[in-house]
């Protein structure tokens, strides 16, 4: 089957991108500057990513809140209009079916879910619909750009956006170069930044306008992955899956207080037990010694016994060193603990470290 193309496919080719298949899409993994340069540009300035492969789903109607409360541990009442929350679709045992963003905007709920899980998530939502007063609309004629980094707000300010009082996890409607955009102040890099949704037909105009600026660097999925790993942000299929619950993944913040007290979400029993008594396994940072990266799937060993595995591993450009995230038995989660990563007959000593590797720099409200 042919991979899908975002509205920016020609833009990527014109900018010299190396395209790779990703979750059924042809996506740019990097541009000629390379992953390290792209990564560092995002940490120091402003970086533009095409994230149109992620699905934008609208849920509206009287049953919208009830549907999302049924499938996630999020307190929907607590999401005021104009605000965004990070959330999780859970299964009966507390495992994670996908992670997502939920925004309440102009009376409807707006979801952004992972490309590779979109088909699953849409079926999941439809399967739990109750009554006729809830509607699910997939906005497949829209594009999504991410502008990330400490310089992102300046770029958008220069282009006429009034961002006064628009803080981390806000959502609003803005005109950008004559194009109506729905913007959230959020991202997947650990930096301040924005995700900009617009009609697919306008995406190339906006991307070209942004990329033409000296203070904007175009970045591919390679840099997006190293940035999110350094920021300790989970990727479904790596740090999250049906067997990993939010407590194990260090996502206690995503379990709303009201929902915990009510215990009325899917998988609540297992999750609340782990909340109270601690999970058997925990996600941790890992710093390999000797300069050689360890990769996803590598077994972690202590005293000859398997104690976990690497969930994401590679090189962290901001640390100028290899770094990884792994799932380990919780008694070994203490920073500094030495483990052996065994891969292809080679052994690398790795030390447990705190996440994130690079502190988050979100612009929060007072």
């Amino acid at each position, binding site marked *: 089957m042919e991979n899908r193309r975002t509205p920016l496919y020609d833009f990527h080719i014109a900018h010299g991108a190396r395209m790779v298949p990703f979750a059924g899409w042809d996506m740019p*993994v*990097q541009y000629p500057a*390379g*992953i*390290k340069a792209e990564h560092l540009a995002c940490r120091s300035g402003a970086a533009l990513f095409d994230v149109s492969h992620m699905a934008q789903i609208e849920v509206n109607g009287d049953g919208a809140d009830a549907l999302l409360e049924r499938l996630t541990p999020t307190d929907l009442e607590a999401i005021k209009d104009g605000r965004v929350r990070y959330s999780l679709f859970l299964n009966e045992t507390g495992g994670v079916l996908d992670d997502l963003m939920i925004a309440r905007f102009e009376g409807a709920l707006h979801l952004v879910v992972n490309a590779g899980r979109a088909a699953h998530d849409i079926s999941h939502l439809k399967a739990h619909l109750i009554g006729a007063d809830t509607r699910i609309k997939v906005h497949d004629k829209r594009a999504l750009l991410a502008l990330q980094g400490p310089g992102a707000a300046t770029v958008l300010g220069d282009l006429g956006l009034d961002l006064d009082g628009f803080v981390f996890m806000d959502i609003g409607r803005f005109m950008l170069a004559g194009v109506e955009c729905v913007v959230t102040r959020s991202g997947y890099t650990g930096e301040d930044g924005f995700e900009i949704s617009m009609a697919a037909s306008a995406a190339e105009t906006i991307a070209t306008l942004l990329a033409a600026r000296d203070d904007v660097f175009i970045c591919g999925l*390679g840099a997006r*992955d*190293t940035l999110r790993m350094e920021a300790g942000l989970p990727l479904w299929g790596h740090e999250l899956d049906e067997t990993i619950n939010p407590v194990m993944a260090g996502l206690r913040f995503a379990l709303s207080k009201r929902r915990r007290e009510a215990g009325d979400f899917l998988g609540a029993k297992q999750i609340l037990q782990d909340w109270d008594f601690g999970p058997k396994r925990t996600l941790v940072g890992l710093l390999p010694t000797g*300069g*050689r*990266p360890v*990769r996803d799937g590598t077994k972690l060993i202590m005293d000859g016994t398997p104690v976990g595995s690497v969930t994401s591993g*590679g*090189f962290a*450009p901001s640390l100028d060193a*290899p770094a990884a995230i792994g799932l380990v038995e919780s008694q070994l989660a203490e920073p500094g603990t030495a483990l052996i990563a065994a891969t292809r007959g080679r052994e690398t000593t790795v030390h447990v470290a705190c996440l994130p590797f690079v502190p988050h720099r979100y612009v929060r409200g007072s």
Partner: protein
Amino acid sequence: MLRYSEDHEWIQLDGDIGTVGISPHAIEQLGDIVFIELPEAGATVSKGDAVAVFESVKAASDIYSPATGEITSVNEAMLDDLTSITPDRATESWLFKVKLSDTSELDEMMDEAAYAAMIS
């Protein structure tokens, strides 16, 4: 004359000593190189053995010996600055020299034109 393998290694023969590296195309495809493991001088290798590893930001790639013989020297100097390994410096970025047991082993390798056709 450079000869190329299907795995993007090149070898240049001088007497029975072959100098081995990877092609500009391979260097470009790897992207940012962050770690290299070279073989040890004195080691005996067979054609097709994985003898070195290039680690880029995203992935690890094995480098295979294009010839059978004994490693006589390795290019430790290249490890001092991995950013100097660029497509236009593929010959300076040689990896190791190998004393071939049988130079006719290279007969089946590609010449420049055949390799260029393969990667195009």
